[in-house]
């Protein structure tokens, strides 16, 4: 799946939770990705993260780190 689309979606989720403060937002974003994303989508965005994670904002990047 297109990495830029996955990045866009992950960032959107992270921004929605950002108002809760960084720590809560990271946990909530990770939880959301776990509950609602098909495993192949999570796998592919983690590949993108491993390749530098271009475009991911800080909360999304940290949340993906929790998914490993």
């Amino acid at each position, binding site marked *: *799946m*297109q990495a830029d689309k996955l990045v866009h979606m992950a960032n959107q989720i992270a921004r*929605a939770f950002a*108002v809760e403060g960084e720590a809560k937002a990271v946990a909530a974003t990770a939880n*959301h990705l776990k509950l*609602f994303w098909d*495993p192949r*989508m999570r796998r592919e965005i983690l590949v993108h993260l491993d390749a530098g994670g271009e475009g991911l904002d800080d909360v999304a990047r940290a949340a993906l780190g929790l998914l490993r």
Partner: protein
Amino acid sequence: MQLIKETDYGTPASKAEAEVSLTIDGFEVTVPAGTSVMRAAMELGVKVPKLCATDSLEAFGSCRMCLVEIEGRNGTPASCTTPVTPGMSVKTQTPLLRTLRKGVMELYISDHPLDCLTCAANGDCELQDTAGEVGLREVRYGYEGDNHLCAEADESNPYFTFDPSKCIACSRCVRACDEVQGTFALTIQGRGFGSKVAAGMDEPFFESECVSCGACVQACPTATLTEKTVIEIGQPEHSLVTTCAYCGVGCSFKAEMRGEDVVRMVPYKDGKANRGHSCVKGRFAFGYASHRERILNPMIRDKITDPWREVSWDEAIAYTASQFKRIQRDYGKDAVGAITSSRCTNEETFLVQKLVRAGFGNNNVDTCARVCHSPTGYGLKTTFGTSAGTQDFDSVEHSDVMLLIGANPTDGHPVFASRMKKRLRQGAKLIVVDPRRTDIVRSPHIEAAHHLPLTPGTNVAVLTAMAHVIVTEGLANEAFIRERCDLDAYAAWATFVADPRYSPEETQALTGVPADELRAAARLYATGGNGAIYYGLGVTEHSQGTTTVMAIANLAMVTGNLGREGVGVNPLRGQNNVQGACDMGSFPHEFVGYRHVSDDATRELFEDLWGVKLEREPGLRIPNMLDAAQDGSFRALYVQGEDILQSDPDTHHVAAGLAAMDCVVVQDLFLNETANYAHVFLPGSTFLEKDGTFTNAERRIQRVRKVMAPKNGYGDWEITQLLSNALGYPMAYSHPSQIMDEIAATTPSFAGVSYPALETLGSVQWPCNAAAPEGTPVMHLDSFARGKGLFVLTDYIATEERTGSRFPLLLTTGRVLSQYNVGAQTRRTANVAWHQEDLLEIHPFDAETRGLKDGDWIKLASRSGETSLRCQITDRVAPGVVYTTFHHPSTQANVITTDFSDWATNCPEYKVTAVQISSSNGPTDWQEAYEAQALQSRRIAPAAE
């Protein structure tokens, strides 16, 4: 089977609790105070002759047939307008009354065509019945005097005839239009002998404001207003009660039949969702079921460029199963999936998701609720603990303030809109939050107290500003919050919304809503009594759709507008079974009853029952399926009753995804647009041809009853079962009731639901279980489903879809009354008379600057695509905003919409697309190419010799 005849009590039931006892014709009867003498008599089984009275309308007292004598009172009062009093002694039949009634009836009949044997209402005519009841044997006045017998019939309405020569001027049609429908399209024109029923300013019905709801036809006691199908076919001989398959109101109808022909659909008085009312779609637009374009034989083809080849059911099912097995063998079990339909029954939807989870072995199942109310599920579950609206429709009768957000009920949910309007005419106040000036903002005898015409995409900012006003002006319901809500979350939320940057004054430049108007609206909602929120897709179909739903929940909690009649949070569901499709486990992350697939206990429950190991990870949503298809990891899709090519956003993206798949199976009534990309077509059945249940917007589970054999051979649930068996996962249901039994056995909120229970109760609202054996009209009475209500911070984040020099206008989309969604059904009925094409609404200022005249062809372009359609110049929309509908594939409005979607649910952002408009001389190259491709794709090869 027999024809269901409901008792007409003559006047509406009194809702008083106090009771009154009286004597009628020597028998004692006890009725609620305020009941009319006519109704009390009927309760006793005594029918007083009547013509102008019917129990859907307030008493009128004009026909002089229902006269009675009351001991101790002078004269002969009309029983319809006379309320009962304690100890009253009434005589309904005396020599005087007999003489009076007969005399009045003679006058009526002296001006009536005596063509009973050839009249369409023969056998269903109250005038005829009443003449019999009063013993009419002669008309002393003769038939030669002045009369109305030469009055010409008005045939302009496609569904009913108005023949004034048969009219007795009882005003029932006029009052039905006023009291029940609330359109006020009819009147009695003229005086004395010249009095006559007229539509609008004496125009033909079709050209008047009449919305063709059928209330006047229903109310008419003669053949003056008659369905054309009755004129054509004759009177029905049996009927069954079923549920409409159009919008989420879920109206109950009597399907009145002659043999296997539907003569007419008559709104069922005991239907708890519609209370005897209907709209132009449910009442009249059922002809698609027998439309010549309906496909009745299965078809397959190797490539989507091939013509279709008709095959037997066995071959079609075997071919599909072999394709799905091959694809799973070659590309893995997760390479296939399915889409359930909100147009199908609960049982059918349950079966499709079961096929996916147990048969396919994955969770790649989604539903069309993805593109409408998925944010409602997420938002209300987060804040209240349950993914559903809180009230029943009757609740509106107790509302003092209605806050209507992003919904256009007079077009989308017309029968409920009539109930809203009735309450508004009684004095309730209305606040409308909508970029367009929808009809309900100002219509006869109704004017919204506040219309907040916000800039599309700023819902969260507007609702948070309302919360700011409520909190900072001390209007919060502290007692409710202390008792019912999570206090830490409230404290954080109250601090958040109180920030000056969320004030109406700070946000007005962004939202376009004047600060003083927003403050006044917030004060009214918080302090005006019972405040009820109703909302639609103008809330959910945004990149912040879920956030808006949670902002709505916050508003209801902070004002204490939950847990009783007259209040609540009420999503108006688009399709007939959106609620049910969501309830039945259609989403890729949850089982029936909203239980996540990762929940071990739930999974084990189904594993034990279904005898297979189930996947604990969520599957793909519809847009993810399309992305994965282009990526090559998703290759086969079974679509039941949905047309994703026309209904889903960014048509080019949907087409590319479908074209990339190896096997697309479409199960539908017609070769819809998605079928252009299909390899297998399985003909579906209509709601008239199968048993099942639908669940409407108020969580009401209602029976769908089979009134004719499926023209395609199978109900949709049977087709899914055939496919499952061919795939090697056995299913052996012999009736949908068994599927419902399985749902009830596995789902706590449905534990008490069964077909026998529905027969007894008529319908039931979930939760229905041991704690609530007759269902739950109002939810969260003493506590929320999640325990304490959760306030959620709702930060406004602007959509990334921005206007600019290339695309300076904002497009928003919606529906019209006469058409339904992609129009697959309504376009194949006479409803096209009202709406033959999608039009683009544009403000006069924007039209002027582009040199456009009303009706001109225009090209509508966005960064996703472009299409052409005609424009309609109107100040309903604000400058800078344009609006269109998506009912016609020749327009394909979704070629314009983008792939932006809600952050939590991927519900598409249909309501905000930056566009440009320019003059055009007709369809675009893309439209012409698409039409050619569609024609090519719909070829059906001639049968082999």
